[in-house]
């Protein structure tokens, strides 16, 4: 019964969140005296995960999974979970992972806890703190099912480098055709996303207007940071 963690990559490179999730899964595995299996999809250098406490890597190389597809990816993770007899699956809070999570939870008959902010406080039943009320409160939630799916809130856990003996296994998945296909992606390639940022430059209404936003962009560029803003600024469309 390994802890299964989905380590996301983009254009073959692991996202920062992948190492955060691997570290989180390692801690859960240690508390349960078990192992961590990571699933990676079309990653260029999967063995990189050996530095983050992963015991086994299921490496999926499949051109059908070149573009993210929630149904196909959830099918892949389900097959990995069944292969590993995993009853705890850890995913991130990225837009893609939160897209596939409810589909996976239904098919795996797993109690789904989104936005987990800490390690579980107990495992029988599994109980974990999560954010709620748009970060104005935390909810302590217990799971009533044998299978559990946890999505970890962004920047909730520290990356721990732990060199581990790791086995790498190619893993084939059966993808059934579905009727939802990506036609195009429009993404800024030269900017750090907030999900991957170590530093964030954020501003609020004190900036007065969009004509002053340039200095925030410039500072973020100099620092290699992402930008963010308060909700009023977002609502004003600055």
């Amino acid at each position: 019964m390994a802890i299964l963690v989905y380590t996301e990559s983009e254009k073959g490179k692991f996202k920062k969140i992948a190492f955060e999730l691997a570290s989180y899964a390692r801690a859960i595995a240690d508390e349960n005296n078990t192992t961590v299996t990571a699933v990676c999809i079309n990653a260029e250098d999967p063995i990189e995960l050996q530095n983050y406490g992963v015991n086994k890597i299921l490496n999926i190389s499949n051109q059908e999974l070149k573009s993210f597809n929630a149904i196909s990816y959830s099918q892949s993770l389900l097959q990995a979970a069944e292969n590993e007899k995993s009853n705890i699956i850890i995913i991130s809070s990225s837009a893609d992972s939160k897209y596939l999570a409810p589909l996976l939870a239904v098919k795996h008959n797993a109690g789904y806890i989104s936005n987990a902010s800490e390690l579980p406080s107990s495992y029988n039943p599994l109980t974990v703190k999560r954010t709620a009320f748009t970060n104005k409160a935390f909810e302590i939630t217990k799971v009533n099912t044998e299978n559990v799916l946890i999505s970890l809130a962004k920047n909730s856990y520290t990356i721990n480098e732990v060199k581990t003996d790791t086995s790498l296994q190619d893993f084939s998945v059966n993808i059934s055709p579905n009727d939802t296909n990506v036609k195009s992606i429009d993404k800024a390639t030269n900017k750090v996303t907030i999900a991957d940022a170590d530093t964030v430059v954020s501003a609020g209404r004190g900036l007065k207007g969009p004509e002053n936003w340039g200095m925030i962009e410039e500072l973020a560029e100099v620092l290699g940071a992402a930008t963010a803003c308060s909700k009023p600024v977002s609502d004003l469309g600055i």
Partner: protein
Amino acid sequence: MKIIVCISHVPDTTSKINFVEGNTKFDRNGVQFVINPNDEFGLTRAMWFKEKQGASVDVINVGLSDTESTLRKALAIGADKAIRIDMSPENGFNVAKQLANYIKNENYDLVIAGRESIDYNGGMVPGMIAGLNNANFINNCISLDIDGTAATAIREIDGGKETIESSTPLVIGAQKGLVEESDLRIPNMRGIMMARKKQLEVIPAIDASNQTDSIEFEKPKPKGEVTLVSSENLDELINLLHNEAKVI
């Protein structure tokens, strides 16, 4: 085109968030409840489908009788019919199960639900409806066009957006961008009067288990003080960014 919009009855965004009964229940005292904003974006887009493509629009909610005021507001905005599944909504999976059960028997072409409610932020109901009914699903939807059975949508992704083609029956997770806040509709007097005559059907809940349960709530620790640096004192700003924030 037959559309159903799932409506969550949530505290207004400006509500004070407090808890009672040993921090096990949300304190509803003095709280005004509204249509979940993500659902309201979806409802407005549904009204556009009704006006431009002749769609029918039903609204549905899982809740007790106190949620009917929210359903009546949706009817006043222009929905044709409301359905309330008579159950206290305490778990996202259970709510999705109730909704999926009704939806699968009524052959809707398009199911719209907010990508998440602003109270419990579970973000699971639209995807679980799709998963339970084996329907197509597009989350974080910021644009949607439907021509016959063909659907073209734009989904917000981390750092950008992607265009997706799919087909009905389709479930979408709605959010801001599907329509803008300036497009949202305030019910007028005629709409409110007409809503009183529209059907609000109450149906019993089916048996379904809670996959998770809330045990307790906590409020975050108060935020630390903000350090204000004068625009005349850039050396101090550099010092703080370098030595305290350690970002430069």
